[in-house]
């Protein structure tokens, strides 16, 4: 049952949408959760499985969003074509940068991806003739799928949820395949991976592009859903938040990344009651989890459950 987790996730997602179609938490927060989940899952392919950190993942989310925003508002392009153009731009940027950047390791790789994210962010802020500068771009048209306009929170919930399920499926597929094993091999021992014939530079570049493409689609949809984009949504801080989601849920686990995204997306909603102390408590929670569960909440949790089950079986 390779996809059992995915089916459970799909069932949960559909049930929530059917039972609580008017709930703010399901539709509005749900869209944020799904967006972050797509980004965390795509980042996890690079970070968790291939072991290559990226502190600039929000940049690809931003490239997708701005491509859609600019091409639809300034040039009146069809939103779907704009999304494709966004994919082309993000994919090209990722492809061109992948080889020189992913040659680096450890802190140097972190610095290079950080720089990449910051430079693209600066471009969004400074190129105001194109991006509208710090004020951003508004009036991004709504989209429709087969004549069905996506103009309510609930409809967006279905759209983003579908993308989230698709990303989960893609991630599970890649992990359990020849390229996925090659990536895990790069993580395990790069020299041994090379000696089994894995072109490590090439597989790293490929996963960098795949992860950028998923982020770009999420960005394009995000632009249409918000009807507005501004640089602050794609800043360095958001990249760090994405890294936190992946690490918090548990590296090298698709559902771990998903879980981390869900948790960090809804946690702020619950912490609102603490008002000024929100950030403080948020930080404390992260610290406690990382100190006591360094493998991440989801990974440690599922290991705990497996052990319990095994013990119960042994007791019989």
């Amino acid at each position, binding site marked *: 049952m390779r996809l059992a987790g995915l089916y459970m996730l799909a069932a949960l997602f559909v049930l929530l949408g059917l039972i609580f179609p008017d709930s703010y938490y399901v539709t509005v927060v749900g869209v944020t959760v799904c967006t972050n989940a797509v980004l965390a899952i795509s980042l996890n392919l690079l970070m968790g499985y291939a072991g290559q950190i990226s502190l600039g993942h929000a940049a690809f989310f931003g490239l997708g969003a701005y491509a859609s925003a600019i091409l639809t508002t300034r040039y009146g392009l069809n939103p779907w074509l704009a999304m494709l153009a966004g994919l082309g731009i993000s994919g090209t940027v990722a492809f061109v940068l992948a080889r020189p950047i992913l040659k680096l390791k450890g802190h140097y790789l972190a610095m290079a991806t950080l720089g990449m994210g910051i430079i693209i962010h600066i471009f969004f802020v400074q190129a105001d003739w194109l991006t509208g500068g710090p004020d951003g771009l508004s009036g991004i048209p709504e989209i429709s799928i087969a004549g069905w306009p996506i103009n309510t929170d609930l409809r967006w919930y279905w759209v983003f949820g579908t993308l989230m399920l698709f990303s989960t499926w*893609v991630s599970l*597929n*890649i992990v*359990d*395949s*020849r*390229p*996925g*094993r*090659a990536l*895990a*091999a790069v*993580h*395990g*021992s790069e*020299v*041994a*991976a*090379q*000696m*089994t*014939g*894995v*072109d*490590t530079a090439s*597989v790293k570049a*490929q*996963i960098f592009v*795949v992860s950028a493409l998923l982020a770009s689609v999420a960005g394009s949809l995000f632009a249409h859903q918000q009807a507005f984009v501004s640089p602050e949504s794609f800043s360095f801080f958001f990249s760090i938040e994405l890294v936190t989601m992946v690490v918090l849920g548990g590296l*090298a686990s698709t559902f771990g990344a998903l879980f981390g995204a869900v948790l960090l997306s809804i946690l702020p909603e619950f912490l609102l009651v603490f008002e000024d102390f929100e950030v403080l408590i948020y930080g404390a929670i992260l610290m406690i989890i990382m100190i006591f569960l360094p493998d991440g909440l989801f990974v440690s949790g599922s290991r705990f459950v497996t052990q319990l089950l095994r013990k119960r079986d042994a007791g019989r």
Partner: protein
Amino acid sequence: MQGGDNMALLTVTGLEKRFGGVTAIAGLDFQVEPEIVFAIIGPNGAGKTTLFNLLTSIYEPTAGTVTFDGHELTRLKPYQIARLGVTRTFQNLQVFLNMTVIENVMVGCHLRSRCGIVEAALRLPSVLREEKKVREMAMEALEFCGLEDIANRDASSLPYGMLKKLEVARALAAKPRMLLMDEPAAGLNDTETMVMSNLIRDIRGSGITVLLVEHNMGLVMEVSDRVLVLNYGELLSQGTPQEVQCDPRVIAAYLGE
């Protein structure tokens, strides 16, 4: 077979490697015939592992050439050398501890399968067929090394002796023509060493040329067809195990005069 008029599978000519002022390999020439076990021995620091790293392009030589079956190896990347049919095991284990046993060996099948990332992401029917085939190939390699019963265990949970065998299984899954084994018996007990020695003989029996670096002289003398002795990066002696054992220079290097 390519490679001129001699029958050598591997030809090393004038190979030299300096690290700053230290000469690790000093002008080495030798040839390895196909389908034999060729051992490289020598005191600690003689340059044995450096030689392996040169043969697999993990290091770039300061001078000299390495020719495998008519192909010049020194300009190639390690994964390109693997494509020509040369693979290796490592002195300090390089098992993928983040995977299960069979997944480790399935990585070994990388060159015998084709599936790319787009097919994999969308899990096209061709992927399913290939996955099944790769699993069978991996299982075959595990059976060859006697690891079939632990195929689904996490590599990180295995004892040292098993990890050593797992590295061999992973290398064999690539169906190499030449296998470089760096101290396969280091850290093994007597029983495990005997199993490893049989395994090396089986590998040779299946038509694979074995280059062996090993400190356990009992094992070396038992399984090798040819032995090369290195000392301070230079060739000290070469011949059959008996010839080398009787060479006074070898005895002097090992025991000190």
